[in-house]
């Protein structure tokens, strides 16, 4: 299917809206094309192509809401889907939390679409796999990887005069390299909007080097260690922390951001003053759409500034209840880094552990944001400023809040899963047991 232009999308949406007889109507239109290749055992395994499109109509009478969807866009189909949404709204119970559609909004122009990414071919994907497999085989290593690329567009219109449009592209790549003796494993992750920034050979070789370096890991006692977390590792724990930046559940007394006095921790210092985290849909390295699914504009927003909670997300309903402005959830997370290189961070470490990534992170206690999980694909012991030897994987039980209070230093930022996260050195990180897994 086609990735519709702004004008094409608007024409379909306006036509659909013209059929509405409800008190209010909001229509979302989206479509995507994506392709992928998967390989393992140094050969290709599965690969595929997916294509879909849909138009979603939400009609409301008072607080009674109905939703219907269709994937054909001729006039008769558009009228049919609008009538269905209206019929369903009439049959529905009232939703006391329903908010009327937003009025017209102004959005920044997004920078999320790159034509070259949209034009990725099966031959290109096969070549990426080859750039992992050939160098892996040459070093007695086995590659398993996955490349997924796609283009999509989203547009919306409503009966209060709002119109929004965005198109975007993305490419996501991960590869795991395992030494053929089964004792070493390395991994990298890369993601971009622009596929021309992606270097499959560089990424694959980084993972191969790490696999070879991690061969023959030694067991050391679990306990509290200074750790240097690569951005992929840190990002997984921070992502979990962001789940509690929800004003409503904080106000309800049921998340980490709840304050004992009945309010929330907005304005309180919760982590080290060097921690600064914000979101920015126009950041050139991690751009996102400039509006969210209900048409709220997304702007650069501070979440933690000098260790202090600057914002919590307020849904439109909860904001109205609390008499404040709504604050949409962030579409990305950017954490300020420092000047130190990874090499310098290692040099300045007397005794510590370098962690490539974490795996299988699960919440243990939501009150303290305690999480458990394991290190994976490259864990190394540092002594007197040098990597001494690879170590067996650890299980940790740690809270990102405690971790960010135990901050030693910050390194440079790296894009991970659409977010920009720095290397970080943390003292007293809690490892509770050893794993035999490689």
């Amino acid at each position: 299917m086609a990735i519709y232009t702004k004008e094409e999308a608007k024409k379909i949406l306006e036509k659909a809206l013209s059929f509405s007889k409800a008190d209010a109507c909001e229509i979302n239109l989206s479509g995507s094309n994506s392709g992928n290749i998967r390989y393992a055992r140094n050969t290709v395994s599965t690969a595929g192509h997916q294509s879909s499109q849909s138009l979603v109509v939400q009609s409301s009478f008072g607080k009674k809401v109905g939703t219907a969807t269709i994937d054909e866009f001729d006039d008769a189909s558009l009228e049919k889907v609008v009538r269905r949404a209206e019929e369903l709204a009439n049959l529905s119970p009232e939703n006391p939390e329903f908010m009327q559609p937003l009025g017209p909004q102004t959005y920044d122009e997004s920078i999320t679409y790159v034509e070259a990414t949209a034009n990725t071919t099966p031959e290109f994907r096969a070549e990426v796999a080859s750039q992992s497999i050939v160098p892996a085989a040459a070093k007695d290593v086995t590659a398993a990887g996955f490349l997924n690329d796609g283009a999509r567009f989203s547009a919306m219109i409503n009966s209060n005069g709002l119109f929004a449009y965005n198109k975007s592209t993305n490419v996501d790549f991960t590869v795991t390299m395992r030494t053929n003796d089964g004792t070493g494993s390395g991994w990298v992750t890369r993601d971009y909007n622009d596929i021309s920034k992606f270097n499959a050979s560089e990424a694959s070789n980084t993972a191969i080097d790490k696999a070879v370096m991690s061969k023959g890991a030694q067991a050391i006692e679990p306990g509290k260690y200074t750790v240097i977390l690569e951005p992929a590792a840190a990002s997984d724990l921070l992502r979990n922390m962001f789940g509690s930046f929800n004003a409503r559940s904080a106000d309800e007394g049921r998340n980490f951001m709840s304050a004992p006095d009945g309010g929330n921790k907005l304005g309180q210092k919760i982590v080290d003053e060097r921690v600064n985290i914000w979101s920015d849909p126009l950041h050139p390295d991690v751009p996102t759409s400039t509006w969210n699914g209900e048409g709220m504009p997304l702007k650069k927003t501070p979440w933690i500034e000098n260790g202090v909670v600057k914002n919590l997300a307020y849904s439109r309903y909860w904001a109205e209840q609390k008499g404040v402005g709504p604050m949409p959830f962030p579409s990305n997370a950017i954490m300020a880094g420092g000047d130190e290189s990874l090499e310098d961070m290692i040099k300045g470490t007397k005794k510590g552990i370098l962690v490539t990534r974490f795996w299988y992170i699960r919440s243990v206690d939501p009150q303290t944001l305690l999480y458990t999980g394991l290190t994976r694909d490259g864990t190394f012991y540092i002594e007197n400023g040098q990597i001494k030897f690879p170590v067996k994987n650890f299980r940790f039980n740690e809270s990102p809040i405690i971790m960010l209070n135990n901050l030693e230093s910050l390194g440079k930022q790296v894009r991970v899963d659409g977010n920009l996260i720095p290397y970080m050195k943390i003292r007293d990180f809690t490892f509770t047991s050893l794993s035999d897994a490689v």
Partner: protein
Amino acid sequence: MKRRNFVQYAGLGTGAILMPSMLLGNSIPVEMLLEPGMDTVLKKKMADVALNTAKSLGATYADARIGRYLNQYVFTREEKVQNVVNTESFGIGIRVIANGTWGFSSTNDVTEDGIKKATEQAVAIAKANSKIQKEPVVLAPVQSHGEVSWKTPIKKDFKEVPISEKVDLLLSANAAATANGASFVNSALFMVNEQKYFASTDGSYIDQDVHRIWPTFSVTAVDRQAGKFKTREAMSAPMGMGYEYMDGLESEKLSGPEGIKLYRNSYDIVEDATLAAKQAQQKLTAKSVEAGKYDLVLEPNHLGLTIHESVGHPLELDRVLGYEANYAGTSFATLDKWESKNFNYGSDLVNIVADKTQVGSLGAVGYDDEGVKTKKWDLIRNGTLVNYQAIRDQVHMIGQNESHGCCYAQSWEDVQFQRMPNVSLEPGKEKYSLQEMIKDVEKGIYILGRGSYSIDQQRYNFQFGGTLFYEIKNGEIVGMLEDVAYQSNTQEFWNSCAKICDQDDYRMFGSFFDGKGQPSQVSAVSHGSSTTRFNGINVINTGRTI
């Protein structure tokens, strides 16, 4: 986890029911759920377009899956209906082998032209990839079934039960929880109907109608002054049943200690919500566990997840062989251990079976998603590893020539691959009840419900929590515990299995949204067991102060 999940998770408050990342399909009005889909004559014709196109382009094998997936989800909190979602997803997925290499393409354009284009795409992908193929696909032979059909044996089709009845039931459960002291309650009903048609160049045309249901809730008790909150999740199981699971039949209830109610093949959500509210409050003041070694008495609604993680996943042959190395990981249960015929996975009491036929289970179907008739087989017999879970393109790698019939795709849109069948622990052969088991424990913890669970990528080291924990001293329950998690190693853990209750205590638990693969797909799977005792397991205290 991808960006969209980041944003989605960010939107969830603690205690909220985790909505699945994939609410598959398009929203439709409820009455459309009852409309008949494409008839089998037309489906056969459309499938043949794909198979013939593939063959004409040089494919040596092709299969087509025409799927219509109808889902209904109801979400409520306290006295409010948050959302009623009806979805339909319809399309075709075409898988081919060309030049010894897989190719796949899917489309929602189920016309002759749309199917031809998608088939061409699948063959083009296979040919492009064949240039780097080193292990040409070898398919185990499969019997041609001709035109056959299969249906989940349901008594009440969820699509025929009015929404108002479902909403009323959830709101009654919420009201019961609130009346008994809950600060908050979220509840949800997930109902799934897969209408799927499979055709392959091996000569099978298989029409199946599969039903699943999962009622669940999360009750939260808050102590504002103490700055504490605790949640208690539902003790229901997701099931391969119709709406009759919600009947709450007395004959399907079991009574545990401390007023606990346990449910077999019928669930009483109002009763469970009432108990949940009381237990969530008890958790606020429960004693913090003293770390150390304990004998654990694990309820089926807890043990199911432990079986899933420590037996189900490590015995997936694709993991063992390295196909999942880049995502879920590999497995400690390597081929040499299986080949030795004496790998001691657990104690002699441990008998674990894989089963795609068990009535009422999430995994039950007549035929898998590559047209293989389903069956039951042993994975662990008397503690020894005896087999894996494998599909048509894998079994030759373990010297077998018959697929186990556990291939699945979450939708027509996604390619099918090896997924976990139901994996269950057989009950003890001697008559032995839960009450007797507790009586025999000197220092232990009785654990119920799903909690935090984490395991490494080769399935050695795990840490599991739970929903409810009761301290056992000298054969008696002496009170509730909190901050409990146990850490163990899979082989050590199953070797510490000391006693299993009998068939009367056997119940199923399961996972409605088990994730695997890249792009990630969900699958539903059940795990049956009776209450089981494990001796001398390491328990840690997870309480922290910030």
